[in-house]
């Protein structure tokens, strides 16, 4: 079932980008500064672009005639395989930024590994995406530092966001059979190999930001296998409305 595993893996990459992009686009016109509105929209746009590439390829590999829109708009929540982290609600802007930082730091490592994938198409998409993600990560680091080491209020909010989201970071590094199999084939990367680098980066940035790494070690999991929290269903009900309400229409 290598083919199936590959399409599953590609969907995970696409779903992460898609769901996070959807969350970011909820900020549209509501950010704390005009420049932030523009930057978030920009990241949301980059992520939609990446989602399109991954999902299109997933659909081709799957071979059941599903294109990017069929995958984005006509799967139900248990078929979505994004990390729990990216489906978490926006919360305040601190929570949105910490979520982004945790994701960007991981995303960059994953894409960096995938650039060397034995699958040319995967390597190609990763090479394109990593240029955008390098910018996302630079921006996230900059803001985490400025807000962590900003006012007492901003530090409090950032630390609260870190505590809130920490338990969704463990899943990023749990390899499951799909990832092990594809990793062994040189197609994907084994995420457990990324953990040390991720933690080193987070620790370094937090040190500069005067933020503390949480002590909690219990981690939530299940997103990659389609077991989500209650928020994702509502996100999808909204996102998928038109495609669900008017099946067969062209938009």
């Amino acid at each position: 079932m290598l083919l199936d595993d590959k399409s599953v893996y590609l969907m995970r990459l696409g779903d992460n980008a898609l769901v996070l992009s959807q969350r970011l686009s909820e900020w549209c016109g509501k950010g704390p500064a005009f420049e932030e509105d523009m930057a978030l929209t920009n990241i949301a746009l980059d992520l939609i672009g990446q989602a399109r590439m991954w999902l299109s390829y997933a659909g081709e590999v799957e071979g059941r005639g599903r294109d990017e829109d069929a995958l984005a708009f006509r799967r139900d929540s248990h078929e979505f395989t994004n990390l729990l982290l990216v489906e978490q609600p926006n919360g305040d802007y601190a929570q949105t930024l910490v979520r982004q930082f945790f994701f960007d730091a991981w995303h960059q490592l994953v894409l960096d590994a995938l650039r060397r994938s034995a699958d040319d198409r995967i390597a190609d998409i990763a090479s394109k995406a990593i240029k955008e993600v390098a910018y996302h990560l630079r921006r996230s680091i900059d803001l985490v530092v400025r807000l962590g080491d900003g006012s007492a209020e901003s530090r409090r909010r950032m630390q609260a966001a870190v505590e809130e989201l920490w338990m969704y970071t463990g899943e990023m590094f749990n390899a499951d059979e799909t990832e092990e199999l594809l990793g062994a084939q040189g197609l994907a990367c084994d995420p457990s190999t990324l953990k040390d680098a991720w933690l080193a980066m987070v620790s370094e940035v937090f040190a500069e930001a005067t933020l503390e790494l949480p002590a909690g070690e219990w981690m939530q999991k299940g997103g990659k296998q389609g077991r989500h929290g209650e928020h994702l269903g509502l996100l999808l009900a909204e996102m998928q409305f038109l495609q669900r309400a008017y099946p067969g229409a062209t938009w």
Partner: protein
Amino acid sequence: MSAEERAFQEKIDAGIKIEAKDWMPEGYRRTLIRQISQHAHSEIVGQLPEGNWVTRAPTLKRKAILLAKIQDEAGHGLYLYSAAETLGVTRDQVYADLLSGKVKYSSIFNYPTTNWADIGTVGWLVDGAAIMNQIPLCRCSYGPYSRAMVRVCKEESFHQRQGYDLVMTMARGTPEQKQMAQDALNRWWWPALMMFGPPDSDSVHSAQSMQWKIKILSNDELRQKFVDQTLPQAEYLGLTVPDHELKWNEDTGHYDFGAIDWEEFRQVVAGNGPCNRDRLRTRVKAWDDGAWFRDALLAHAEKKSERQVAAAKAA
């Protein structure tokens, strides 16, 4: 008229741009600040009715197009605030006047976007009317404003084409989609005509603004141009403009159209449109909720510069 004023008017009449450092009458400055900042506010508030559908865009491509459009509008807001700043105000001052309700934004954004075809229709009609208003302003007398308008118009023409394309896809789609497109046209047509402002007979300040070349064509002239341009586009889509009195007039070479409900216009301007309260509240809430963020960036910058000073002293 003083010698300065006379020289100023002569420059304008000769088609020479006024630049930020040039002398200008206080009325010219004030009128421009109001006009440019209203325009900037409209770009910023105009993100909201479109933002209402970003999370429900029906394809990933359409979602990306819509997000990019909204981002462009934020960008337009920023150039325009910069143009206003050349006249000696700050962006935060000008923006505070929006939030307090002292200065308005375009009333068109007080109508709701209630179906997906609205997103195309807003691009087609609202950006269309905006471009109609703005193209002459590319030739306006104030240099920074005219240059901002050139850039804005270029991007808005692109948005208008994308909007028209969206409406065309709907108009040629399923019966339900065609109905949505028609429904959107029905709701946006009259508000779009109102975008050109009150009839010339009621319009205040216009004569002076025209003399100063910060208004080039009259409201009614622009409105007529818009109707003449848009009608054939609607026909091409197979949609019906909701005006029984609309017909081609051979004698004038223009379309005649029905009477506009100016009472509705006045009410919407006065705050009684369907979405006035929601629009302003959304922006006020965004600003208030973001105060800690903006303050923290300042606090960090101060800390950083203090550290640099301390480091320099220590060295």
